[in-house]
């Protein structure tokens, strides 16, 4: 399968539950750290080079066929926030369901059996990419792009930001998404030889700190 399968997997309307998550944007908006297009762009840029790169590396490694169990442990260790581990597994479970319907495969069945509560979303995405006949670069692209498109879309709702401005942010970030996806795919290939320890582990302290505060709120628009 080719490019069209990638469009299906990367489509924001793919029913994997991503729309319910803001990627930390809701907490950043409430704290006044994101107030408009310029600060949204810096937020997305930071997220792309940290948790975006981590996710993309995990997805690339899973797309290359590295054991999802080993990668799930690596994803856990790279997600110190308990709230974000819960969110990542919930998203992983929904993605598993959607991907099994879209691209039935023994590997996805096995993943669902091994992780009834869900494996981390990027790991599932990599296995789904394999099932769809896609490669490590495709899986890395999906995660890298999702790491910025999620917060950008959420901020349109949170701040009533002009959707044209949010899309312009994504367009400006596109060259960096290319670089991050490339680096992540490279790291995935390195992990084939060196193990999951070779995968990126970039940290974003405000995302982690904000996530625990956000999870404690009584009322919120997004799940994370």
């Amino acid at each position, binding site marked *: 399968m080719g490019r069209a399968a990638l469009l299906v997997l990367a489509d924001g309307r793919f029913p994997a539950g991503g729309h319910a998550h803001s990627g*930390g944007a809701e907490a*950043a908006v409430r*704290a006044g*750290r*994101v107030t408009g297009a310029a*600060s949204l762009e*810096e*937020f*997305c*840029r*930071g*997220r*792309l*080079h*940290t948790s975006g*790169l981590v996710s993309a590396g995990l997805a690339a490694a899973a797309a290359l066929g590295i054991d999802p169990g080993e990668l799930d*442990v*690596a994803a*856990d*260790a*790279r*997600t*110190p*926030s*308990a*709230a974000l*581990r819960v969110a990542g597994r919930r998203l992983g479970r929904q993605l598993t369901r959607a991907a099994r319907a879209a691209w039935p495969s023994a590997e996805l069945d096995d993943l669902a059996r091994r992780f009834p509560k869900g494996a981390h979303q990027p790991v599932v995405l990599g296995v789904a990419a394999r099932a769809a006949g896609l490669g490590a670069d495709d899986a890395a692209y999906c995660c890298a792009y999702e790491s910025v498109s999620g917060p950008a879309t959420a901020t349109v709702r949170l701040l009533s930001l002009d959707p044209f401005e949010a899309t312009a942010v994504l367009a400006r970030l596109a060259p*960096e998404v290319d670089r991050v996806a490339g680096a992540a795919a490279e790291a995935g290939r390195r992990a084939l030889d060196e193990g*999951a*320890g070779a995968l*990126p*582990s*970039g*940290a*974003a*302290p*405000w*995302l*982690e*700190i904000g*996530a*625990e*505060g956000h*999870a*404690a709120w009584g009322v919120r628009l997004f799940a994370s």
Partner: protein
Amino acid sequence: MDGVTSGVRATARVRARADGRGGTALPVLAGEGPLALRRVRAHGAEARVMLVGAMSGPLGGDRLAVEAEAGAGARLHVGSAAATIALPGQAKDAARYDVRLTVGADAELRWLPEQLISAQGSELAVTTRADVAAGGRLVLREEQALGRAGERPGRLTSRLSVYAGGRALLEQELSCGPGAPGGWDGPAVLAGCRAVGQLVVVRPEFGESPVAARPLGESAALTPLPGPGVLVTALGADALRVRRVLDEALREFG
């Protein structure tokens, strides 16, 4: 290969063993070059060691390492006499500083050095790796101050890896300063904060009854790690504010 500009290479080592009389012996206590180790007064069964910087640094091109091991039954506390200041050197290369911590079963290691200050123009890569055997206990504090007072930060990459019973508990790399990947000072990463600190506590009982995650004020949070450990991450305008948050967590968990 350039004898003029290559920096200092030095490794300091400390190994602790239970002495069989309820205390802790230090069969290895060896500083090297700018890294000196001093044994200070014990605290009950716990042996205490101070890392004393015999010169400023690390400077560009330096390769410094510290290895600390608490063998089965030992209790070891390692502190430092002063903050470590990464400074620009004559060498063009970045400096490296590698910390390796090993904790045996029924052993305890408390690694509580002073801050690392990333001075303007410096370039340093720090790696800290802790391997804790099943049943071992670890308290690990890391604090980074980005620039001295009123100064722009240097380039700093700090990787922290903690393994418990052979399983990865925490793998994180913070990258900041000029030339770091984009957005490092933006609203997802540091947002202008000039100090960041982490406290990791590994204890076997955290595996059975995990501590609940909670925010600690506006700019810090406590979270259980995926295994027998907890992590406190704190951001602040300066190192003092971060230390205050970590000290409070240390009183609760340390």
